[in-house]
């Protein structure tokens, strides 16, 4: 029944967050916590030869100073992937808690544990490390050259992984006479998640176990990784996740939980708190992979795509984190978004001496979408084709099935989304109006499509565990290992539980906090999968719970079970619609029965062996001031098909956030490094140009609701997709305005100056 889903219910956590009562990690910190601070590497690549900690230890209030020479000799992986029991598919274990071989400026070398943060900070400044410096490399192609600095002993050549895709016969196909070749190099920057709450964690020991309270998206995974890093049984670790102040993928990694957990064991189990400073968040957490993409397309005069080649170099930075899976996701999309009979693809994930790249909203897709959708417009430019018509002809058509995942394009989604966007933007009026402009200020309109896969099947088996408990008043306590990180899944879950079980929405109590001692197993928030898999877990568990409830109703009322139903918290005799009793009366009677007592609960794990494509388009309009080298975004619209909406208002809000991130990616955000030293140059929120309130036009959102057939609630990915097409849509709008193809982002005045000069639009 669809009574509560599909409507804009108020967020379940809105009141607590609007009043400041919602508790985040630091809000739960007990008095008397010890403070941990980290001494980070002051060189970009080399070995720590020795560390003098005596001055640091002498600071009043310092409890302990520990260094890379003290940590367990264990290398561990950090990626928030589900673990694989197959050693060939396990994440790369390439770091220790503190490292002697330092691989980027900011690597973790030593820690101070002190009674207060002032003492800890002073002590960190007094640590003296001696290094043997080595040459470093920042570029993802130079790192593969012979003679490049070697970053990991166990990975000679710095090539973390390489994957290839072959469809048809590229070499033969390009021999066709008359083909037109279009080639481009596309570069995307290193950017950071910039959730407003920095990652924070505290740990202490209780009953011989380690309790870790962390700002994480993946509590159950962090438990496993902490166990691995410390070399202790995983059951000895308990991870608690309260509300978190955003994650966007950065917190889909074990960040400082293992180190803080180890720290507590070094001070007799006393509570140790560590909180990243903003400058550390930028450099010593995770960043988005900067990916360089090289595309060559061979097309006929009418635009028919005959063959394509795609090469990608993904800058993974100092440690593997999510490894190859990020560029692999993007690379896999190239021959799917625009199916082509002959394709040759290769993707490299490489180590460099930059901060570690990991998961970030979009997971390889914003990078690849920027390349592919910019390239698509370049094809149109070269052939003189209409960018919309060309996309209608060449984008993934209805009925497309991916051979690997068996995912299917069930509807004519791209055309539907394009139609809607054209109408809302009045696209063709603008497109014609903006032809043949000559002045210094020019307007342009651009479009970009996007593709996104919900969840990770068949890379790994998805599961979702759900527990439901009927309280004495007939309300439902709901728990899952899938996590609320701000996106609103707790609210969507509540709506789905109300519909699936048959109770009023206000009778669903979602337990937002995950505690690995209590919460059913779940891998957490990533891959835009929470609503998709939650819908399956909830449906399965609700079926079990309803069966139990109706059996008890049968026992209590003597009515045949076939005539009973649970509707909006009431047991109904379906034959005449009479209300026999409320669920509250049933549960109370059942629990306190003198003859047949039941605590009515259900717990189920569903296995998910399906996956869904999520699609849409983005339209952008810009005004470009050529002499000033400024591009101003004047209008932007995302059109999404993410299936049936569970909560339209929250869905729209999710899209706003993704679009905002995409705008920053397109126009302003970039973490910069000094080429001479490898030092980060702008790791703070003043110099790193995060979009502010003044950098956005109104964010417009529209939906096409094609129910996803593989999901009981018809839903699919929405968390990450909105961020994917924005940069390319803006880039294509700038091209429409100026006829200049810009293949790098962010498209800031520095870039525009160079490009406009080369194009002869301005004089040097």
């Amino acid at each position, binding site marked *: 029944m669809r009574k509560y889903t599909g409507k804009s219910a108020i967020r379940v956590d809105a009141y607590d967050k609007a009043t*400041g009562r919602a508790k985040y990690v630091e809000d739960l910190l007990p008095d008397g916590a010890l403070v941990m601070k980290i001494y980070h590497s002051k060189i970009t690549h080399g070995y720590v030869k020795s560390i003098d900690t005596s001055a640091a230890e002498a600071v009043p209030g310092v409890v302990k100073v520990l260094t890379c020479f003290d940590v367990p000799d264990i290398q561990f992986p950090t990626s928030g992937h589900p673990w694989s029991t197959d050693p060939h598919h396990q994440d790369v274990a390439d770091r220790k808690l503190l490292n002697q071989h330092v691989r980027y400026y900011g690597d973790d070398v030593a820690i101070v544990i002190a009674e207060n943060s002032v003492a800890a900070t002073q002590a960190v400044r007094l640590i003296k490390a001696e290094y043997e410096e080595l040459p470093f490399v920042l570029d993802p192609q130079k790192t593969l050259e012979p003679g490049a600095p070697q970053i990991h002993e166990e990975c000679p050549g710095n090539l973390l992984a390489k994957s290839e895709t072959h469809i048809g016969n590229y070499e033969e196909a390009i021999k066709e006479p008359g083909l037109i070749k279009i080639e481009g190099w596309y570069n995307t920057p290193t950017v950071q998640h910039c959730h407003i709450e920095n990652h924070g964690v505290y740990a202490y020991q209780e009953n011989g176990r380690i309790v870790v309270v962390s700002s994480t998206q993946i509590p159950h995974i962090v438990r496993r990784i902490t166990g691995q890093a410390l070399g202790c049984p995983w059951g000895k670790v308990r991870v608690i996740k309260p509300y978190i102040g955003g994650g966007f993928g950065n917190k889909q990694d074990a960040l400082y939980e293992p180190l803080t957990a180890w720290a507590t064991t070094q001070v007799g189990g006393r509570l140790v708190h560590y909180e990243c400073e903003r400058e550390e968040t930028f450099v010593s957490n995770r960043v988005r992979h900067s990916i360089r993409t090289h595309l060559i397309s061979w097309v006929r005069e009418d635009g028919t795509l005959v063959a394509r080649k795609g090469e990608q170099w993904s800058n993974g930075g100092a440690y593997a984190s999510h490894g190859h899976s990020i560029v692999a996701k993007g690379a896999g999309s190239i021959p799917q978004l625009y199916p082509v009979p002959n394709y040759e693809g290769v993707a490299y994930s490489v180590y460099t001496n930059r901060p570690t790249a990991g998961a970030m909203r979009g997971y390889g897709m914003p990078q690849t979408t920027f390349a592919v959708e910019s390239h698509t417009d370049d094809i149109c430019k070269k052939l003189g084709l209409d960018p919309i018509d060309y996309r209608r002809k060449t984008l993934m058509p209805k009925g497309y099935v991916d051979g690997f995942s068996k995912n299917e394009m069930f509807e004519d989604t791209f055309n539907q989304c394009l139609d809607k966007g054209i109408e809302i933007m009045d696209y063709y009026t603008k497109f014609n109006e903006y032809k043949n402009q000559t002045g210094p200020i020019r307007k342009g309109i651009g479009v970009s499509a996007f593709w996104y896969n919900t969840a990770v099947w068949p890379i790994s088996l998805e599961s979702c565990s759900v527990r439901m408990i009927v309280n004495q008043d007939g309300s439902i306590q709901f728990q899952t290992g899938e996590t609320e990180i701000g996106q609103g899944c707790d609210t969507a879950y509540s709506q789905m539980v109300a519909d699936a079980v048959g109770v009023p929405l206000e009778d669903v109590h979602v337990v937002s906090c995950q505690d690995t001692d209590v919460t059913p197993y779940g891998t957490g928030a990533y891959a835009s999968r929470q609503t998709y898999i939650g819908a399956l877990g909830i449906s399965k568990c609700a079926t079990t719970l309803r069966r139990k409830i109706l059996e008890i109703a049968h026992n209590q009322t003597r009515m045949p079970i076939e005539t009973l139903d649970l509707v909006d918290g009431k047991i109904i005799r379906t034959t005449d619609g009479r209300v026999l009793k409320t669920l509250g009366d049933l549960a109370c009677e059942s629990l306190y029965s003198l003859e047949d007592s039941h605590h009515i609960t259900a717990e189920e794990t569903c296995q998910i062996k399906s996956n869904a494509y999520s699609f849409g388009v983005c339209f952008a309009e810009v005004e470009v001031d050529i002499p000033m080298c400024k591009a101003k975004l004047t209008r932007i619209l995302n059109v999404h098909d993410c299936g049936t909406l569970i909560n339209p208002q929250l869905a729209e809000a999710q899209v*706003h956030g993704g679009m905002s991130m995409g705008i920053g990616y397109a126009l302003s955000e970039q973490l910069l490094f000094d080429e001479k030293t490898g030092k980060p140059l702008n790791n703070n929120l003043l110099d790193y140009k995060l979009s502010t309130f003044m950098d956005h036009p109104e964010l417009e959102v529209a939906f096409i609701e094609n129910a996803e057939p593989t999901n009981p609630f018809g839903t699919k990915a929405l968390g990450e997709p909105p961020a994917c097409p924005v940069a390319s849509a803006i880039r294509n709008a700038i091209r429409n305005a100026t006829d200049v193809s810009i293949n790098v982002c962010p498209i800031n005045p520095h870039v525009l100056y160079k490009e406009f000069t080369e194009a002869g639009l301005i004089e040097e």
Partner: protein
Amino acid sequence: MEKHQIQYQTVHFTLNGKEVEKTVDVRASLTDMLRNDFHMLSVKKGCEVGECGACTVIIDGETLNSCLYLAIWAEGKNIRTLESLVGPNGELSDIQQAFVEEAAIQCGFCTPGFIMTAQEIIETGKEYTDDQLRKLLSGHLCRCTGYENVLRAVKKAIKKVMYKRLGKEQPAE
């Protein structure tokens, strides 16, 4: 090494309508004092250098980043945090209610700071264009909402308070 004598000072100020006093480390920020000594946990820390706006409080009617304000400067001041906006029976203020209704809240970490600046805007009793509001609110960073619903919420609350002040009934939208 040189030993520093930690200096303490007693400050007296009004916090959310109540006169209070506290002896604090002279180096402490107002954020530290409000969080650690008064448990005003709505005051959030996102950068501690005045870049993000999450720690915003109202001091003598004016919003400020409490991370850039020494605790001892609170002497004699009237300081309000988000906690002051909630009614005695837990009623939400107009601006809080608007944030709830307009889905202007996601992770919620920037929310308290935003609401305090919005409250300051509302208390001016003036009308603003969208561009003016964007500028007034631009000291706050948010990564979840794209600011869109925050703008809607602030506009909604301004309108609601305006009608209330005029003693007129607000026409239904």
